[in-house]
């Protein structure tokens, strides 16, 4: 079943340069889809269009739809705050808010006006567990989040995006600043998480893409070149441009 359907989607910067051109992509539920390709290809922009974070940026959608469970998220009347609760996001740099570990997690509830203490307590433990961080921080939830290491911070950000039980998680190069061990921990968490969530990830390398992708989409200069089942795409790409990129000839 397709969780997200992107139809004929185009987007440009306010100065008129095109960023994404006629993208068509079906993102299946409960799988890990990677969007990969050289920098500037429009992967992050596409990611940020799904939760409408591009509303903050200087971009304009020129055509197309992004359907989430059949609802066009680009609809002007859409409650974007609600959308963003349904679609969690993790960024390239771990951005912990200048709060305690606990408040970083519960901040989403705070915004939504949810005060159910039992639910919050339970969600904190669950989300930290899902991000493989519970054991490391359970005794110091009230410490400032900045006291954590970079890898821990990024897992905290993952937990934070999970705490309101979204349907979809978007990850924009979530491991780009992490050491190999932390990277592995995050990747393992994601393999567990896809049972419950639909995951869309922009990897920081082809290797990572090949390692974790169920479905892989190759982007080049604002165009979607090729989509394929992870393992197949990386061993037998059908398009020459995809092949050249995978073989490391550019980007």
């Amino acid at each position, binding site marked *: 079943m397709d969780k997200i359907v992107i139809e004929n989607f185009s987007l440009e910067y306010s100065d008129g340069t095109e960023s994404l051109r006629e993208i068509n992509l079906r993102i299946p539920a409960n799988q890990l889809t990677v969007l990969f390709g050289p920098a500037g290809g429009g992967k992050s922009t596409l990611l940020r269009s799904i939760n409408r974070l591009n509303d903050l940026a200087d971009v304009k959608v020129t055509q197309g739809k992004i359907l989430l469970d059949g609802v066009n998220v680009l609809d002007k009347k859409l409650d974007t705050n609600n959308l963003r609760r349904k679609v969690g996001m993790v960024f390239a740099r771990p951005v912990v808010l*200048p709060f305690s570990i606990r408040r970083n997690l519960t901040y989403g509830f705070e*915004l939504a006006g949810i005060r159910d203490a039992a639910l919050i307590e339970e969600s904190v433990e669950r989300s930290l567990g899902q991000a493989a961080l519970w054991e490391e921080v359970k005794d110091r939830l009230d410490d400032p989040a900045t006291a954590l290491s970079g890898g821990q911070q990024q897992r905290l950000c993952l937990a934070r995006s999970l705490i309101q039980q979204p349907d979809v998680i978007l990850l924009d190069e979530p491991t780009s600043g992490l050491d190999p061990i932390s990277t592995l921990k995050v990747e393992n968490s994601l393999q567990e998480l896809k049972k419950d969530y639909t995951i869309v990830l922009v990897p920081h390398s082809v290797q990572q893409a090949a390692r974790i992708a169920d479905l892989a989409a190759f982007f080049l200069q604002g165009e979607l070149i090729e989509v394929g089942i992870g393992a197949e795409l990386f061993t037998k790409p059908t398009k020459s441009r995809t092949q050249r990129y995978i073989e490391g000839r550019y980007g």
Partner: protein
Amino acid sequence: MKLSSKQRMLVQNLAFAAMSLIASLTVIFIVLIVVYIVSMGAGAISFEFIFSMPYDGMRSGGILPAIIGTFYLTLGTAALAVPLGLGAAIFLSEYAPDNQMTRIIRIAITNLSGIPSVVYGLFGLGLFVLFLQLGTSILAASMTLAIMTLPVIISTAEEALRTVPQSFRVVSISLGGTRWQTIRKIVLPEAMPGILTGVILGLERAAGETAPIMFTGAAFFLPQLPTSLTDATMALPYHLFVISTQVPGMPIQIQFGTALVLLVFVLGMNLIASIIRSRARAKRQW
């Protein structure tokens, strides 16, 4: 002109010596002014001087009404200028699109900050005292000082808001926060020390000003303390002006004592601002 390396070093040494001499003299001079006022004024300071009313044509007694008056005016200015200035700063930093209208606002703020203080006095007289018929009063003077202080508060508060990392805003929005929630829960608390510093520096200026209050609320001499916002009031800077130029036979010690109290008032605010700033820097997590 080719200089040998020795000559070039000589030029450098001379230039550096001149610069450091000028800079040091400037700083020493400032310290000397402060020391001079403190040493000359300290003798005048007593419980009576701070806490009693003046008498004998202000040549004896204390300066309580002037101290209280300046305190009221500073509070009044804060009450009016802080919410307005903060709101304007939030607008500029968080809401304003980058367009012609925003540029006009910025030009207006720059111009407000450049208008001579005495012109604010004229404006306050024309608008608040006469047109709105508030009379020479604490209210009229506070309003005048508030408008004068506004540009300082807006610019410093905006700067403080802008130093909060953009990524905090993006994360908050991505978690389903509205713009105002993001401002209230993250941006404002993080910018608060910087905002406070700016507010205090703005108020410090207001507390020391004379020209804007001369025709809007300051009184030469009042036998009692002001009891309402519509009363005129004595104020430290105006009082110092009065006793150093308008009252013949004024004991020099009272003049220095008044100058010292004003100095302590103003520099005390400066000190508080510095403490807030350095504490916040030490505590800041980003």
